[in-house]
């Protein structure tokens, strides 16, 4: 196996250190970079993120990263969005006004409701471990996406992506009685709402699986 190299996009948000360590544990050498230089040479790109959607898009724009990211994906470069990074893949977000996203996966980002169907209060942000279930509408088996059905992963979020095409939903999660999309894939663009780098052994297994998919691309 040749050495796998990915670039973690640093726009000032997210625990890049943990993502880098999780990559290392999974046989991936990850460089952290604030610029678009090098996006063409790596085997894959990781778009992390914690915080506000609008601010993140502004920062990506001011660092001159939006066009190069879209171009890299167009040229076939695998991209993994984590947490806010997954939400940025969508067309737009309703977080504090409407903000345009990268538009790599059709759909929008919406706030988790404050109340359940029965009227009980939902704690938002949703912080903690929850389970992901494979989308029954999708033909993939777990072998294809790197997750086990019912696997536990760690979430921290107030918003969630709503992909337009249900076939692009990889996994679903129930927070209290609210069901939302917890992972999405369109071709070589993957997004996970949870933090695989903070999801113990199962999270590392997902990175290893992603690494295998990068290997196939080379």
């Amino acid at each position, binding site marked *: 196996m040749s050495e796998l190299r990915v670039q973690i996009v640093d726009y000032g*948000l997210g*625990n890049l*250190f*943990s993502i880098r*360590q*999780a990559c290392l*544990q999974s046989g991936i050498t990850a460089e952290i970079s604030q610029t678009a230089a090098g996006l063409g040479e790596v085997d894959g790109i990781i778009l992390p993120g*914690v*915080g*506000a959607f609008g601010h993140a898009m502004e920062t990506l724009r001011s660092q001159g990263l939006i066009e190069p990211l879209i171009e890299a994906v167009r040229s076939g470069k695998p991209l993994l969005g984590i947490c806010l990074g997954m939400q940025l893949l969508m067309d737009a977000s309703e977080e504090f006004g409407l903000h345009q996203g990268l538009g790599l996966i059709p759909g929008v980002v919406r706030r988790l409701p*404050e109340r359940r169907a029965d009227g009980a*209060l939902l*704690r*938002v*942000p949703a*912080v*903690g*471990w*929850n389970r992901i279930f494979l989308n029954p509408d999708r033909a993939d088996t777990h072998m294809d996406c790197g997750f086990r059905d019912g696997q*536990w992963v*760690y979430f*921290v*979020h107030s918003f969630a992506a709503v992909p337009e095409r249900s076939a692009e939903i990889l996994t679903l999660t129930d927070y*209290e009685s609210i069901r939302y999309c917890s992972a999405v894939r369109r071709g070589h663009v993957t997004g996970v709402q949870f*933090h695989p*780098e*903070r*999801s*113990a*052994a*199962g*999270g*590392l297994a997902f990175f290893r699986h992603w690494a295998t998919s990068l290997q196939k691309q080379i």
Partner: protein
Amino acid sequence: MSMVRVIARLDIKGANLVKGIRLEGLRVLGDPDTFARYYYESGADELIYQDAVASLYGRNSLCEMISRTSREIFIPLTVGGGLRSIEDIRQALAAGADKVSLNTAVIAAPQLIREASRRFGSSTIVVAIEAGRQADGSWLAFTDNGREHTGVDAVQWAIRAEELGAGEILATSIDREGTGEGFDTDLCARIAAAVKIPVIAHGGAGKAEHVADTARRTGVSAVAVSSLLHYEAIRTLRPRESVGSEGNREFLQSGRGVSHVQPCTVQELKRRLLDGGVQCRLEDAV
């Protein structure tokens, strides 16, 4: 009922894991890295590192400890103790922490919560409230490990912290901390009902039932436990020595057990929670 997180809390003094009673009389228990690894492997949902004497010693050693830990431990890490500025927070996060816990600094300057949550995201900012029960049944917030009285009402302070952008509240009962007498469930329930953000109960868990009871009755989203897990870990890990020669090592050297807690592993604790109708993440040990 929601999912409850079990957080192993490690109080650190210098290079050692310590444990006190009511945040004082700190006993050295051993090398924190070994305990952290053990808790990760036995299924803890998160870790909290609290520098017990941050104001007295340098903080660089804690940052080094965090960097070491986050290289091999892939669950969320919260770091607290002596963080006083945006730059302190930035350094802790850069060292590999996922969240920081703030107490003394934000009581003195509440706007730091707003500034920090805007800069790093609300979910990164945990406000720690050290609450001391008063004769009239209310609770006042303290700082510096329960030593400094602030005159601020603990429940009102939790509401204010949420308004300013805190992502979670870590509610410590000074009266119960380290005693093994059980959480202050009234305090937990009052704070959990006053805010919408997640509340972590801390201070007093002496047996698994205390945790289950608090999770069932108070609306907290997580529990932070230390004695309960540490005294079991000591039996399993058998740390013979502490790091360096600082601190009170008499307990460790004596090989004595403890009578004020009924220690258990993370897995045992979670099984008891599930048996008691509390949802939590339980996986096979690594």
